[in-house]
């Protein structure tokens, strides 16, 4: 615990790493703060960093952020279980398995584990649950998968694009044309998750696949951040900052200043360079 500049950050998980493989070059930071009102943190963040250029090509990078739901139901256990399971399974995944197939499979693994952990936690079981957002990078591809209302933004040339769509009741109803965006933002159901890890034996994750360009920044965050900081503000802060860590701290400070009633977590990932590949008969080859 301690004060860092003007930001009363109570807990920081920081891992600013520059890994320069021959191809994909990534730097990132992950920060988590209890917020101003809570005395515990139900968010959990983790990453998988390839240990060699060969592993970078065969597996790539994985970043996962989970936000546990519901204090009494051990939300912090659910989020940690989900992230740890995803990373462990990613590490042992077959080489070259397409990320678009791999990530939903890992999320389902994590879901089953959270579900089973919840059921075995007490005689009646608990309603342990968590959101999750995970992005994997390999060559020049980014695959984002999520369940719940934790988000991933792609910041490119100073503009933020929300890759994920929130799995909340009001957002689902808005997409179905049953309410306006304005109503959805103020509805009581904006806090009610329509999908979460651990509530059912099986879960459907949404998956998005993108081509990464050098300089792209991915920002993964929980609702503690995106409820009070807009995508445009996130884009402005991360694209103007020289150091990712200072951008992360600024985002957390802004969220705390405006609300701070929830835990705040963010992962910022910058692709310094990417390896452009083409595919021939299912095998990647390097493009020049």
């Amino acid at each position, binding site marked *: 615990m301690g004060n860092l500049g003007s930001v009363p950050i109570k807990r920081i998980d920081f891992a600013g790493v520059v890994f320069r493989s021959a191809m994909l070059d990534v730097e990132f930071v992950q920060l988590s703060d209890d917020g101003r009102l809570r005395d515990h943190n139900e968010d959990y963040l983790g990453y998988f960093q390839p240990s060699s250029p060969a592993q970078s090509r065969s597996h790539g990078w994985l970043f996962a952020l989970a936000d546990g*739901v*519901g*204090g*009494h*139901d051990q939300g912090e256990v659910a989020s940690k279980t989900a992230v740890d399971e995803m990373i462990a399974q990613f590490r042992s995944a077959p080489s070259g398995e397409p990320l678009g197939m791999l990530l939903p499979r890992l999320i389902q693994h994590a879901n089953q584990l959270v579900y089973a952990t919840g059921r075995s936690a*007490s005689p009646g079981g*608990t*309603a342990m*649950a968590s959101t999750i957002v995970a992005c994997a990078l390999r060559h020049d591809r980014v695959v984002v998968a999520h369940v719940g*209302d934790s988000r991933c933004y792609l910041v490119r040339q100073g503009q933020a694009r929300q890759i994920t769509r929130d799995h909340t*009741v*009001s957002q*689902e*109803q808005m997409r*179905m*044309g*049953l*309410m306006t965006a304005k*109503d*959805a933002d*103020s*509805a*009581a*159901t*904006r*806090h*009610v*998750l*329509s*999908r*979460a890890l651990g*509530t059912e034996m099986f879960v459907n994750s949404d998956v998005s696949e993108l081509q990464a360009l050098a300089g792209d920044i991915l920002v993964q965050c929980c*609702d503690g951040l995106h409820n009070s900081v807009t995508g445009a503000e996130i884009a402005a802060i991360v694209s103007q900052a020289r150091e990712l860590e200072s951008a992360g701290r600024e985002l957390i400070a802004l969220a705390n200043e405006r609300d701070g009633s929830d835990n705040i977590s963010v992962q910022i990932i910058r692709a310094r360079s990417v390896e452009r590949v083409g595919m021939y008969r299912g095998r990647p080859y390097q493009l020049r």
Partner: protein
Amino acid sequence: MTSLHPGDQLDNYRIEQLVARSGMASIYSATDLRNNRKVAIKIPHPEMEADPVLFERFEREAEIGAKLDHPGVMKVFRDPERSRIYMVMEWVDGRLLRHIIHDLRKLPPERAIKIAIAISDALDYIHRNGVVHRDLKPENIMIDDQDHIKLIDFGIAGKEGARRLTFAKLSQVMGTPDYISPEQVKGKRGDGRSDIYALGVMLYEMLSGKTPFQGPNPFAIMNDRLLNNPIPPREVNPEISPELQEVIYRALEREPQNRYASANELAWDLEHLDQVGVTDRAELTDWKHRKTPFARQFIFYAAMALIPIVIFGLLLFIAKH
């Protein structure tokens, strides 16, 4: 915290037996040793006491129950000197309306009307006292041998819950999907007219044996009331008079401003069905045309798919001429 057994004494109460156990609390029958009165004691489960939202719900129920005094509302007795957290309520002999509907499937119209009028009277009282039930359903209504009713469970009658929840716990903050009003489905807090809507659903269910809106899951059931009309009650049960059907439609109006403004108005119409004017409602014919939220999306995507075909056709036309 130790569990209680028959014969145990809890402050001024002697525990008789465990009568019900829900996800939130256990309910015991007990005797107040000061006056030999039979009471019901609701004791929250320890895990509920640790959950701020559920515990607040429990406290709210006790607070609201203590301030209301009406024969149609279960009384809650205040007692400041308690060694642990629990709620003492009047003992009500009777059955839940849910069990009655389950056993009889359809209630005779006269009996359903009598119960609905009694519920309306209780609703009118609580609304005049600034309380909205917000989770009215057959599980929350006790009925005795003479069909006197008691409203129970005012757990979500109070403040809005802002904490994030999973869909499975939706009813903790919003109400139960079958009985929820359209404005609550849209995420609004709702007012007394939301309770009137729920009563309209229960009246429909008492008379027809099923709830008006159906769907494969609670989310679909909730949303169905925003798009579609229920099967006309008289189609399901011809014993229902056109006037009674009209009253049900007025209670089930999608827009709150078109609904009965007060429970008193609904009770008056039920008591004077011969004076209810029957209108030629669109709902009587529209109910067969089922709309889905995906129809609009389908049209949109179909239109998008047509764009390249139209462009290709135009190019072909230009090339030929």
